[in-house]
C-alpha cells in the first residue's frame, strides 16, 4: 500500500523526480567514469614504460646490476633465451649485450650505455623502430652501425652517417675501441635514456668484448600482466643462478607513481560521493518543503510518522532504482566509446602537452566488478542522503503546515 503510494507520488511531479533520478544517474556515471579514467591512465603509463622501456621482467647475472662489469654474463644465454621464448606465459623476449663506455665524436666525448641488440627481436620487445626520427633502424646485416638518441647526438654534435668511436673495457679489463657509423637517431619519452642509450648490433659488441656471445640482460614481455608474480617465482626456481626482477623492482619510481594515483583516486571517489549526496539532500529538502501542504494534510488525516517516513524513504529508493540502470548504461556507453576511440587531452590542456609532445590519448577502461562496486556505493549514498529530508518532513506541524501556501 505504502509502496504504491510512494510510486504514484514519484510520477505526480515528474520534474522533481526527474532531477533526483538524473543526479543519481550522474553520480553513478561520474564515479565509474573517474575510476575508468584513472585505470586507463595508469594502464597507459605502465604500457608506455613497460612496452617501450623496462619490459615486464629482466634477467641478469646476480652481480651485474651492482657492478656492471661485462664479465657478468648470463651463462648459456641462447639456451635460456630459447626456453624462455617457448614458455607459455611469455609473449616475447630479447637478449642484450651491455657495456658502459665512452662515445667519442671529433668534438666531444660522453659516457654512454652501449646496448648490443638483436634488431628484430628488440623491435618486437620495445618497438624501438617506431621512435626513429631520422635515418633508419638497424637490420640484421648491419656491421658497425649505431642508433643514438637525439639528445646525445646534440651533445656530440654529430649527424646521420657521422663516424664515432666507442671505447670501453673488455672482459680482460683491456681498453678496446671500435669505429661505428650513425645509422639512425631516435627520440624517447624518457630524455635521460635518450642522452645515454646507444644501440648497436649485439654481435659487434660481443666481438669487441671478446667473450663469446652471451647476453648480460634478457628482457621479456608477458602475454598477460597478471601472470607477473607467478612467473617471477617460477623462473626464480628454474634459474636459481640468475637475478630475476619485475618492473616493480626495476623501476620503484613507476610503482610509487601508480600507488599514488591509486590512493588519490579513493579520496576523489569520496569527494564525488559527498558531492552527490549534497545534491540529493538539497533537492529532496526542497521537495519536502514544496510538499509541506500535502504532507501536513496527510498527517492531519492520520498518517503516522513511521508511515510518512517510510513513504518518503521509499520514494527515494524507487527513484534510485530507476536511476541505476540509466546511470550504468550511460557509464558503460561513455567508457566503451572512449575506450575505443580514446580521450584526447591535448585539446583540453594544450599548454602542458605542447611543451613536451608526449602521449595525450587516454583510453578509459573498467572491469565489470567495479561497475557493481560503484553502483553499491552510489545506492548506499543516495539512500543515506534521503534520511535527513525525511526527518525534516516528520518535524512538520500539521496545522501550520496546512496553513502555509
Amino acid at each position: 500500500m505504502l509502496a504504491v503510494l510512494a510510486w504514484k507520488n514519484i510520477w505526480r511531479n515528474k520534474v522533481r523526480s526527474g532531477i533526483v533520478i538524473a543526479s543519481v544517474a550522474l553520480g553513478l556515471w561520474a564515479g565509474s567514469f573517474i575510476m575508468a579514467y584513472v585505470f586507463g591512465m595508469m594502464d597507459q603509463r605502465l604500457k608506455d614504460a613497460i612496452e617501450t622501456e623496462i619490459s615486464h621482467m629482466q634477467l641478469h647475472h646476480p652481480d651485474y646490476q651492482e657492478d656492471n662489469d661485462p664479465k657478468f654474463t648470463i651463462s648459456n644465454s641462447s639456451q635460456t633465451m630459447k626456453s624462455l621464448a617457448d614458455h607459455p606465459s611469455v609473449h616475447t623476449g630479447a637478449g642484450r649485450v651491455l657495456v658502459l663506455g665512452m662515445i667519442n665524436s671529433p668534438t666531444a666525448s660522453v659516457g654512454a650505455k652501449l646496448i648490443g641488440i638483436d634488431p628484430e627481436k628488440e623491435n618486437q620487445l620495445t618497438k624501438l623502430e617506431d621512435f626513429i626520427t631520422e635515418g633508419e633502424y638497424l637490420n640484421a646485416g648491419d656491421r658497425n652501425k649505431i642508433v643514438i638518441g637525439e639528445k646525445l647526438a646534440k651533445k656530440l654534435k654529430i649527424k646521420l652517417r657521422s663516424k664515432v668511436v666507442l671505447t670501453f673495457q673488455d672482459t680482460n679489463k683491456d681498453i678496446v675501441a671500435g669505429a661505428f657509423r650513425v645509422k639512425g637517431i631516435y627520440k624517447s619519452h624518457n630524455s635521460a635514456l635518450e642522452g645515454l642509450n646507444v644501440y648497436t648490433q649485439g654481435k659487434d659488441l660481443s666481438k669487441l668484448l671478446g667473450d663469446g656471445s652471451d647476453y648480460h640482460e634478457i628482457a621479456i614481455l608477458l602475454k598477460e600482466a597478471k601472470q607477473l608474480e607467478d612467473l617471477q617465482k617460477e623462473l626464480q626456481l628454474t634459474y636459481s643462478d640468475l637475478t630475476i626482477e619485475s618492473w616493480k623492482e626495476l623501476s620503484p619510481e613507476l610503482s610509487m607513481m601508480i600507488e599514488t594515483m591509486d590512493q588519490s583516486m579513493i579520496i576523489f571517489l569520496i569527494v564525488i560521493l559527498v558531492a552527490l549526496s549534497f545534491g540529493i539532500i538539497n533537492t529532496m529538502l526542497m521537495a519536502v518543503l514544496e510538499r509541506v501542504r500535502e504532507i501536513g494534510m496527510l498527517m492531519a488525516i492520520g498518517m503516522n510518522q513511521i508511515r510518512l517516513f517510510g513513504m518518503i524513504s521509499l520514494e527515494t529508493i524507487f527513484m534510485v532504482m530507476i536511476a541505476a540502470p540509466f546511470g550504468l548504461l550511460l557509464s558503460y556507453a561513455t567508457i566503451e566509446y572512449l575506450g575505443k576511440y580514446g580521450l584526447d587531452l591535448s585539446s583540453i590542456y594544450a599548454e602542458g602537452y605542447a611543451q613536451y609532445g608526449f602521449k595525450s590519448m587516454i583510453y578509459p577502461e573498467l572491469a565489470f566488478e567495479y561497475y557493481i562496486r560503484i553502483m553499491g556505493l552510489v545506492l548506499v549514498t543516495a539512500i543515506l542522503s534521503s534520511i535527513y529530508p525525511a526527518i525534516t518532513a516528520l518535524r512538520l506541524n500539521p496545522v501550520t503546515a496546512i496553513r502555509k501556501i
Partner: protein
Amino acid sequence: MILKLAWRNLWRNRKRTVITSASVVFAVLLAIFLNSLKEGILVKMQENVVSFYSGAIQLHQDGYWDDQTINNTFEAAENLVDKMIAHENVISVVPRLESFALTASTDNSRGSLIISIDPEKERLITKIDQKIVVGDFIQKDDQAALITLGLANYLALDVGDTIVIIGQGYHGVSAAGKYPVKGIIDFASPQLNKSIVYLPLKEGQWLFGATDRLSALVLQVDNINDSEETAADLEQLAGAKYEVMNWSILLPELDQFIEGERAENVIFLFVLYLLISFGIFGTILMMTMERKFEFGVLVAIGMKKLKLSSVVVLENIFVSLMGAFVGTLVSIPLIAYFNAYPIKVTGELKEAYENYGFDPVFYFSIEPKIFYSQTLVVLIIALVLSIYPMLKINRLDAVEAMRD
C-alpha cells in the same frame, strides 16, 4: 527598487534561501578541497624531488650545464652570493663543486661523482645527514668522505676504511687523494646509490686544484611556484658570465611528469564541476517550480517579465555570493586543518615514500589562488544556471501558472 525587492524576497522564505546557498557552499567547499589536495600532492612531490636532487635553482658559469667539466667552474665573488640572497624568494645559497673521478679500494674501482659540499648548508636543503645508515655526517674541516651504500658494497668499504680518489683536476692538474670513510648514505634510488662520494668543500677544492672554485650555487627558494620568475630575475642580476637555471630545466623529466599530471587532473575537475552544477541546478529548478504561482500573480497584476527576471537573477546573485562567501570562509579552517594534519597514505605507497625519505602523507596546498579561483568557478556556474528561471519566466503564462 528591484534590488530591494530581491533582497526582501530572499528573507521571505528563509529555508529556501538557506538550502540554495548551502548547495553553493558545499560546491565551493568540495572544489577547493579537491584542488588543494591535487596541488598539494604535486607541489610536495616537486619540492621533495627538487630538494632531493638539484635544488630549486642553480647558478653556474655560463655553458656549464651543456659541458659539465671542472674547467667550467667559477670563483664566486662575495657580492654574487649577497646579490642572490638579497632576492626575496631566496632562502639560502649553497655552494657545490662537482666532478667525476675514479674511486678505488684495494680490489675494485668505479667512476663516481665527487660532490664537494658545505656540510652545514647542504644538510639544510637536502637533509642528507638523515640518510646516513652507518657512521657520522662530515664536518666542515674534516678530511673524510661520505659514500653511498651501493659504492660501499662494491668497493667493500666500511666506516673507517680508506677510499682512494684519482682523477683530473682544474686545467688538467692531476687529482689524487685518499680519505677515511666517515659515513655511508642510503638513497632509495638505486641509480643514485651506485656511485656518489661527498667531500667537505675545502677538501674537494684542494683535491681538484680548484681553490675557491665552484661548479654551482644551489639556491633554496621560499615558494617553489615562483621559482621560474625568480630564476629569470637572478639571471638578470648575475650578468652574462653566469647561467641561472630553474629546476624545470635541471630536471626536465620531473617537469614533464608534473605537467602531465596537471593535464590529467583537468578531467577530474570537469567531472566534479558537472556534479556540482547539477546539484545547484536541482535547487534552482525546484525554486522556480515552487514559485510558479507567485510569478503568475506578479505577471497578472502587471509586473513586466523583464523586471521579474531581473529580480530573480538578482536573488540568485545574492544567494550565490552568500554561498560562495560562506563556502570560502568555511573552507579556510578545513584546508588549514588538513594542511596541518595531512592525510596519511598507507600500504606499499607509505613504504615507497619512506624509502625516498619523503613524508608518507598527502599534503593540502594553501596557495591563495586555489581559494579564489575555485570560488570564482562555482560562482560562475551558479550564475550561468540562473538563466533557467529567466527563460522560464519569459515563457510564463500567467493564467496557467496561477491555476496550479
